[in-house]
């Protein structure tokens, strides 16, 4: 693992904040309005039917999951107080918190969990439809117990690590008997969380206010109100932060150049801390339908041609590290330290291409008859800049790349449905357990058109076996070992090069206290966040 100069600086300033911030040691203060900037808004605010950070950052303050992750990244109960699993992995029992009320005053009961799991998570929720595919029923022996019955073994660790994202509970009495997708509560959510939905003005803002009856009590939540403002222009967003209109910009919502500038401003904290649970890779995907790329030596050669250290330091301002495989280093339960598999070595890359039969016809000429077509993923600066970087790096080893830029729907169609690409960049979000949304990049069998799956024609039966065995292994230690087989195959075959690992960057006012203290803080409920006086 390489540590760059900038990372040391970032880590240092994060420590400085934790140790000597303006309000260190002070008791939390009640009151105040936290204003959050968001780049885009979502069609729904219901995390039980749409799993994405854009929904969580708003809705998870209002609607709560059964389980969240604590400061150490371990599952901790929210609406579930405790749980136990049967030895065969087919039954998981959740004992629910008592005395919790929905915002409309009705009591929270096991029926709500049953309804959310069977009607929303299993049938509608993206990633949930896969995770809960073998969920047969949720039984409710009493009002405060929900028993999940699976037809295939479900590792408890997988379920508990998936639940923070894929386990938000919505009120059955509001949704039952209605069309869940078009229920008005999808944009005016009713939950059990620390903040109560107040007002949503599309294109402008969302307001949620303090829930005085919140079950945690003890004066929580501390904030009076949270306002989310939609500011799509990134330059305008940093101006809003600097003028004091906004106190928090989550999920790398600003331009990287502004993030780097604000990191030197004493009024703000700029850090990836509190986002470790939202780690992603910036990747290069290679279409194996293209004759040259079908050869593994060629794919490896292309990876060796990329000077990723340079890319991280100069394009990403140091807020990233070298990727080592599809499981990121932030995933303590599954990560085994490895070195970056394809260190930069241009001479080696050229030699490998020569050996694979793609010699330069003459000095300075290009190796392939046709240029490689690269579709940059339009997911922001990381993936778009990476495309340019790939183009320039590969030119050095005699491989011409043509870039065809498209917007989101065009990109998804071009890559995942029409397979009309040779190379593409991508943003692979890791969701705390490889079985949630990571192995699907390498397994065969995804229907054509399913976005964020293996659509580049990679087919290795050994890989499919490794993935399937690990997904149903119940013993955590064995499971971790099995996933190392998966990582090794993924790295050796390299249909996808997990080039750069990074967490989202948060930029927030130093007044914002009690924040970024869990690995998925931006997506958590903010019940203990508070604002120090200006």
């Amino acid at each position: 693992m390489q540590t760059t100069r900038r990372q040391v600086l970032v880590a240092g300033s994060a420590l400085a904040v934790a140790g000597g911030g303006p309000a260190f040691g002070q008791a939390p203060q009640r009151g105040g309005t936290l204003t959050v900037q968001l780049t885009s808004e979502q069609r729904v605010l219901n995390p039980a039917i749409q799993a994405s950070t854009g929904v969580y950052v708003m809705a998870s303050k209002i609607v709560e999951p059964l389980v969240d992750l604590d400061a150490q990244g371990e599952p901790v109960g929210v609406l579930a107080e405790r749980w136990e699993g049967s030895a065969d992995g087919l039954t998981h029992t959740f004992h629910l918190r008592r005395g919790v009320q929905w915002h409309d005053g009705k009591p929270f009961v096991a029926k709500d969990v049953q309804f959310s799991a069977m009607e929303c998570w299993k049938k509608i929720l993206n990633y949930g439809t896969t995770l809960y595919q073998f969920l047969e029923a949720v039984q409710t022996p009493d009002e405060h117990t929900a028993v999940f019955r699976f037809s295939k073994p479900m590792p408890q660790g997988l379920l508990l690590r998936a639940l923070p994202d894929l386990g938000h509970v919505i009120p059955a009495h509001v949704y039952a008997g209605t069309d869940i997708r078009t229920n008005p509560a999808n944009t005016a959510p009713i939950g059990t969380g620390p903040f109560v939905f107040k007002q949503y003005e599309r294109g402008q803002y969302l307001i949620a206010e303090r829930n005085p009856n919140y079950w945690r009590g003890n004066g929580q939540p501390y904030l009076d109100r949270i306002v989310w403002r939609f500011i799509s222009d990134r330059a305008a967003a940093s101006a809003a932060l600097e003028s004091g209109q906004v106190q928090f910009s989550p999920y790398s919502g600003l331009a990287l150049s502004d993030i780097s500038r604000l990191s030197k401003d004493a009024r703000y904290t700029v850090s990836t801390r509190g986002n470790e649970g939202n780690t992603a890779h910036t990747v290069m995907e290679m279409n194996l339908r293209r004759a040259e790329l079908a050869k593994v030596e060629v794919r490896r050669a292309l990876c060796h041609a990329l000077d990723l250290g340079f890319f991280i330091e100069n394009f990403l301002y140091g807020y990233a590290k070298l990727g080592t495989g599809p499981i990121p280093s932030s995933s303590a339960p599954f990560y085994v330290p490895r070195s970056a598999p394809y260190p930069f070595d241009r001479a080696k890359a050229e030699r490998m291409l020569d050996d694979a039969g793609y010699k330069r016809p003459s000095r300075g000429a290009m190796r392939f008859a046709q240029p490689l077509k690269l579709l940059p993923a339009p997911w922001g600066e990381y993936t778009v800049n990476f495309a340019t970087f790939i183009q320039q790096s590969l030119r050095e080893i005699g491989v011409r790349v043509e870039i065809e830029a498209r917007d989101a729907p065009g990109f998804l169609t071009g890559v995942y449905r029409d397979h009309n690409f040779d190379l593409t960049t991508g943003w692979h979000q890791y969701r705390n357990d490889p079985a949630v949304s990571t192995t699907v990049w390498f397994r065969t069998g995804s229907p054509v058109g399913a976005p964020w799956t293996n659509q580049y024609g990679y087919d290795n039966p050994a890989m499919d076996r490794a993935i399937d065995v690990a997904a149903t292994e119940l013993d955590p230690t064995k499971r971790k070992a099995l996933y190392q087989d998966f990582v090794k195959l993924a790295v050796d075959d390299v249909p996808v090069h997990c080039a750069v690992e990074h967490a989202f960057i948060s930029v927030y006012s130093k007044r914002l206290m009690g924040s970024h203290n869990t690995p998925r803080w931006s997506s958590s409920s903010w019940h203990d966040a508070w604002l120090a006086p200006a």
Partner: protein
Amino acid sequence: MKRIGGLALRRLAQSVPVLLIILIGLFLLLQLAPGDTVDALLAQMGGGDAAVAARLRQDYGLDVSVPVQLGRYLVRLLSFDLGMSAIYGKPVASVIFERLAVTALFMSCALAFAFSAGLVLGVLAARRVNGWPDTLISTLGLVFYAIPSFWLGLMLIVLFSVKLAWLPPGGFESIGQGLTGLAHVLDVARHLVLPILSLSLIFLAIYLRLMRASMLEVMTLDFVRTARAKGLSEGHVLRRHVLRNALLPMVTFVGLQFSTMLGGSVVVESVFSLPGLGRLAFESVVQRDLNTLLGIVLVSAVLVIVVNFIVDLLYAKLDPRIVAR
């Protein structure tokens, strides 16, 4: 009055084929853009399986062929139904109506400011042609004309919001203050100062130069000499004789530029996060929300037709020799 009513009806009838061509053309054009609104939704969600996508396509009516979709749309349009918005999950008409007020207020203010300031500066420049006020005003006009509105907007924000903290950097009103009456009006006005400046300066420059040239031309005409010979004061000549005639090209331009301004407001609304039609149109394209986009185009086309109709009427008012037909 009756004549004007008849005229309005005739104009409207004439514009129906134009509107149809615009709508069908846009509909077909958007089919060429790869991906549909379900792809856009999946992009937002960060994933989803194929069965979910198929069901969504069915919900949005995207599972049938393009001619059938177009036919369904036109049939609905006959009953003035613009369909449902995919992004907002409610009728397009109400989505547009919510945004229309913001855009209408914003654009009419910008247009009024550009027009009146351009007029005054143009007259001042023409009166002292080649003098220092003329040089100053013309140079300023050139500078305004050369500055792109998004950059100007950002610079205004940096200066007036970040550095000086005089004006808010964006948004339409202060959030959650519950202001009413005059306080609310002032609050909205404070929020609109910077957007109006950044949208209107480029148009101001155009009007200024147009007004100056037009004034100079009219001032050389015979009837002006006659008016002066009659012994009218210079001010009187300018106001009653020159200005009125010089206004004609300006008014023409307002009609023409109205649609350009609608386009420009897309950028400015994004920079200042104003909840207007321009930003809605941009979002609809990105999210492939066909119904909303067609609705916006329809409303904008009607707006442009109406504005041009008013311009025609104004013509007749300014110059009795011209009769609106």
